[in-house]
């Protein structure tokens, strides 16, 4: 007779190999929690309102005030060491395209040119960062992730600051220093079968606005209710997938239905592209800027800025907490 403990072991309802609680590196939500806890140790008495906004936003603000020691690293000029980017600027004009119209155009484009979403992404990103117990800066990074049908893939990350092409880029090594533009920070090749084993959003996204909303909420509970959570989910989702026209239209439609999304005007983003900007103030603090391609609704940029000063960290209202610019 089979041992009763063995029977029970086989009936374990929660797997370590698959499902939402499977073993893998921390996801954005878990990193957010750790950073929140880490920040508490540094600011026990200061309010934490900004920290509730977003994983990367929770990251600390120490980069702003960083003074970089020499320590054998290449000499860094003051300009190199301004780690935090300036926020994007939006200009309202008569040519502004309403979000509902962009969503309509996106749906029309999806009908004309159907295509599937593709695993992998190509993004430019930066966020404030903090390692527990030490001051850090974070590097502006261009990352390219590709996946094949057999689950094999690759990831390449290079240091590059779109504000200063060709110039040295501040690097978050210890101690911080500068590296040359385009320096490879990470190059990984994954054997077949890797995809899905260690990725969020590993199932192909559905079509349909409601279905996509549910899909996002499955990975980030609350994304179907809270606008800031929805934006956070869209950001992480599109770091895994490069969307086809149908899903682009679904995302644009989802965004067009977000209460509180306000037109901001035309934006020239960090990659020199023209887009239409929309702002959303998160209830718990912080303000998002969403930049869409007005022609097909493609998400170009997502940026979060502080709405209140945090003098302890030399954070001023309007400072950028993170941005992501999708290149693909």
């Amino acid at each position, binding site marked *: 007779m089979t041992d009763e*403990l063995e*029977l029970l*072991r*086989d009936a374990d309802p929660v797997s*370590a190999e698959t499902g939402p*609680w499977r073993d893998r590196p921390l996801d954005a939500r878990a990193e957010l929690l750790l950073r929140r806890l880490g920040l508490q140790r540094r600011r026990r008495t200061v309010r934490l309102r900004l920290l509730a906004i977003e994983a990367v936003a929770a990251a600390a603000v120490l980069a702003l005030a960083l003074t970089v020691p020499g320590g054998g690293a290449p000499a860094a000029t003051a300009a190199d060491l301004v780690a935090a980017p300036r926020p994007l600027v939006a200009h309202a004009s008569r040519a502004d395209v309403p979000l509902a119209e962009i969503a309509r155009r996106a749906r029309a484009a999806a009908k004309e040119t159907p295509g599937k979403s593709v695993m992998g992404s190509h993004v430019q990103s930066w966020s404030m960062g903090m390692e527990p117990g030490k001051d850090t800066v974070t590097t502006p990074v261009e990352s390219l992730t590709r996946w094949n049908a057999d689950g094999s893939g690759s990831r390449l990350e290079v240091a590059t600051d779109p504000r200063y092409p060709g110039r040295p880029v501040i690097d978050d090594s210890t101690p911080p220093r500068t590296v040359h533009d385009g320096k490879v920070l990470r190059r990984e090749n994954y054997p077949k079968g890797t995809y899905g084993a260690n990725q969020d959003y590993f199932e192909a996204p559905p079509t349909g606005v409601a279905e996509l909303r549910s899909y996002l909420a499955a990975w980030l509970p609350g994304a179907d209710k809270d606008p800031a959570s929805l934006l956070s989910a869209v950001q992480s989702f599109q770091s895994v997938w490069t969307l086809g026209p149908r899903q682009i239209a679904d995302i644009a439609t989802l965004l067009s239905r977000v209460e509180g999304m306000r037109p901001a005007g035309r934006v020239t983003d960090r990659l020199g592209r023209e887009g239409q900007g929309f702002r959303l103030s998160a209830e718990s603090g912080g303000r998002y800027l969403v930049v869409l391609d007005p022609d097909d609704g493609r998400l170009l940029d997502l940026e979060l800025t502080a709405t209140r000063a945090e003098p302890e960290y030399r954070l001023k209202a309007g400072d950028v907490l993170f941005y992501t610019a999708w290149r693909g």
Partner: protein
Amino acid sequence: MSTDEAFDAAYREHYWAVSRFVARRLGDQTADVEEVVAEVFAVAWRRRAELPDPPLPWLYGVARHCLANTVRGRGRYRRLLARLGHHEMTRGPRTVPAPDAERPGSWVLEALARLGEADQEVLRLTTWEELSLDEVSTVLGCGRSAAAMRLHRARRRLRTEIDRLRRTDPVALGCASGTTGNTASDKDGRP
């Protein structure tokens, strides 16, 4: 390694294990898992000076307390709703079986559910969390011999319930789908 560094390392290494621990005990209420896990690590952070090596059994112990608070909170909420007359929200489990009810081994879960909570917990810790007796004793806050005794008794009771299920529903236990418990049986008109 400083206390803070030890906490960070424990967090990174055991975040998903703690999540599974919580998810197993919250059943189908997966939406609450992250909230409870966040509470577990918030409490662990405040008590990080006590963090032992290895930390996982201790984290499970913290999680047990957080889950108990969650369950107590739910009980209060349900009572409040009951007073307000929200019968729809306060009544017991629905008769529609969850998708998991069809998975192999669900009848073993039914046998487990028939045991007392203390028995269930020592069995879960031993099988699903794969803890040794020493680690079980850390989680339960008892001595090793007491943990061994609890496990011995719980195993015997689980075996009894499994045998009882086998006697009452041999057909269902013979196939992969199993049963869905009393509610489903009632629905089917079986005794």
